[in-house]
């Protein structure tokens, strides 16, 4: 695990901790959601300045030369702070751009991303794709020297502040085939691109994007014709890894806050923590949280030596285990706080909502269990 040296890692860890504790309190977050839709330009500037945006990119592209596991510490702390800025989305898209030929528009975009001036997002999910990044129905039909894109992407995260979108499209092959998937880079204001943005229940920004016969040229195609599946699978696996780390950060926070609350809240003349039934509930919250943290640690330690198909399996295991763990811990944190846990005023419910959102993103537990069975049966 980790390509970066210990010194760089602890420097990053210190800076992200300082940021979340100092500038991202629950009140700050509320203000950020109200004023900036949760995507403050000042915060983003800090992200760039602190080097967080440069972590998993090669030094020759201006990055820190780390790998995706080096972002997990940042994601965990972002979980604690419920950070709504598009860190995961932009890192994922930039990782898709990074292996492409580093020149022209791609180089310009990557430089802009790392310096915090530009944002790109990846549009993958479609109605009915359930988290399978290879279930691509959006059509890329040959048209003169280029293609025409038609179809719909849903739950595209954080396109609000992005200028460009990477979109997966199918030029050949059957619905879930590996062969025949392409990846195109285009401006979000290109003719025929229709964006319906919406705030999500967890404070993040989402959008559905319709492509009405959008013309793209071959220069906008990131890989050889029909050969983007490997790159897309890798991006999906890496996003799952990052999401799991955010979830662990949230779940550890919920266990800590729930334990603290039950020590102070009194009913029937004693602290809630005196009741054995609640003690056991919290023991189970600890077990679920620690189980996921241990699985994440083991996954991260095996990540770099795993080939892409193995990474996909590791990521599915993590997400399949995350689902029930996150649901249990989130629900029980609300339950043990009682009525106050149901309010918008307290942070607990917001952690619960973010966990719920994480559960459903990039394929829920059931979908990943099915994927794992197919792997065993194959």
């Amino acid at each position: 695990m980790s390509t970066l040296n210990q010194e760089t890692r602890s420097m990053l860890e210190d800076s992200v901790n300082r940021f979340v504790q100092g500038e991202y309190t629950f009140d700050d977050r509320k203000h950020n959601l109200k004023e900036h839709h949760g995507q403050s330009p000042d915060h983003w500037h800090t992200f760039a300045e602190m080097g967080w945006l440069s972590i998993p990119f090669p030094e020759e592209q201006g990055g820190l030369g780390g790998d995706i596991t080096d972002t997990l510490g940042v994601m965990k702390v972002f979980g604690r702070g419920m950070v709504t800025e598009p860190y995961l989305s932009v890192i994922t898209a930039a990782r898709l751009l990074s292996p492409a030929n580093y020149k022209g528009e791609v180089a310009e975009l990557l430089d802009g991303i790392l310096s915090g001036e530009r944002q790109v997002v990846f549009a993958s999910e479609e109605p009915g794709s359930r988290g399978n990044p290879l279930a691509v129905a959006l059509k890329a039909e040959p048209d003169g020297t280029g293609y025409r894109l038609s179809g719909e992407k849903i739950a595209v995260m954080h396109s609000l502040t992005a200028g460009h979108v990477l979109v997966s499209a199918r030029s050949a092959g059957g619905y879930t085939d590996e062969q025949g998937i392409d990846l195109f880079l285009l401006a979000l204001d290109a003719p025929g691109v229709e964006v319906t943005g919406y705030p999500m229940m967890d404070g993040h920004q989402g959008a559905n994007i319709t492509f009405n016969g959008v013309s793209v040229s071959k220069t906008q195609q990131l890989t050889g014709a029909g050969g983007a599946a490997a790159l897309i699978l890798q991006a999906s696996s890496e996003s799952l890894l990052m999401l799991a780390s955010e979830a662990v950060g949230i779940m550890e926070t919920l266990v800590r806050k729930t334990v603290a609350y039950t020590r102070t809240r009194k009913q029937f003349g004693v602290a809630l923590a005196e009741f054995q039934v609640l003690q056991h509930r919290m023991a189970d919250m600890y077990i679920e949280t620690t189980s996921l943290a241990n699985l994440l640690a083991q996954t991260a330690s095996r990540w770099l030596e795993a080939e892409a198909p193995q990474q996909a399996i590791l990521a599915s295991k993590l997400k399949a285990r995350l689902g029930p763990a996150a649901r249990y811990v989130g629900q029980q944190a609300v339950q043990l706080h009682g009525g106050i846990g149901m309010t918008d005023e307290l942070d607990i419910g917001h952690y619960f909502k973010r966990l719920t959102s994480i559960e459903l993103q990039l394929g829920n537990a059931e979908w990943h269990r099915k994927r794992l069975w197919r792997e065993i049966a194959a």
Partner: protein
Amino acid sequence: MSTQESAELSRFRQQVRDFIEQNADEEILEAGRKTTSFFPPFDQVMKWHRILHGQGWSAIRWPEEYGGTGWDVPRQLIFEEECRRAGVPLLLPQSIAMVGPAIIHYGTEAQKKKHLPGILAGEDFWAQGYSEPNAGSDLASLKCRADRDGDHYVINGSKTWTTYAHHANRMFLLVRTGGGAGKPQQGISFFLIEDLSDPGIDIRPIIGLDGVPEQCDVFFTDVRVPLDCCLGEENDGWSVAKYLLEHERGGGTSFATTFRHELDLIRRLAGRTGDGFGGMLADDPVFQDRYIRLALEVDTLEATEEVFASMEKGSPQSGPMSSMIKVTSMEAIQRITELAIDVAGSPSLALQLAALTVGSGVEPIGDEDALTLMPKYLNNRAASIFGGSNEIQRNIIAKSLLR
């Protein structure tokens, strides 16, 4: 499963595989196949223990200076994976994984010299004398007494649920040596009993739900033992007991490796068992989902075992983590054995004690793989009760959270 294995580890794996293949005879393999609890058939598992000792492999987690292998964690896991693959019985935990580490940690030089070689060689088998008729989960309320009489202690009282005491020639024992003042944990001592043939010791096997004796009642009447049988300080046996319990709960062995083997067996069985609608159970989405959920529990358990193995025992984190392993591993095996009988269906109902006995020559009725499933299900109901019930483990975790 690790994703890739270095050439060095692959050679090690091959070496282990070859050794097992050349040394595990049919009787030992039969005992492996007919194991229905955490405690394999006694005679054959001890025979295998002595064969492993001949190779210097009986204590894979002990330090080298005490006769352990000095293997790192990946090698320990490979060894266990290969043992599972070959189907040899896993060594009994009481001596090697429980009292052994306690003697290494707390023993005097004389105690180490006296006891460790017999444990290592498989010449001695130690039973665990902890629970009493009125001290189960509340272990500290134990009443079995030892009073000083000159240069001896005199033991009176009883123990219960003492696994394989009817096979044992040694016993480690928690007894009350102190007065009544203070917390119940005070005044308890940890004894190493060398001679179970004393006429004052009466061992009576208890027949379990699976129809065979595994646990015993043990009665002590005026049993004289020398003063130097005390491990650690007199009246401070609770510290020793807790240290040992952490080893017991945290698993001396990799549960994940063992459980994965059980899941493989179930999947094969589901592949040749009909679903009642003309298809096979292995193609039933309900079966598949239950199977994958359990496989994930086992993967997660393996990750926790890895974290725990690299943790310093006795640290603030290791206590709750060992309780967590106890809870998650025992709940996993209980659910695995449940899935097994659900897959096997009514053919698992036949009571086949003779066919289950090693060397009986009695052919099993029905599918041979299904022979052990019901005894395993029944036996494993104890998994959430023994070693401190899972409710007690949750108390321990909550206590550490609330500290």
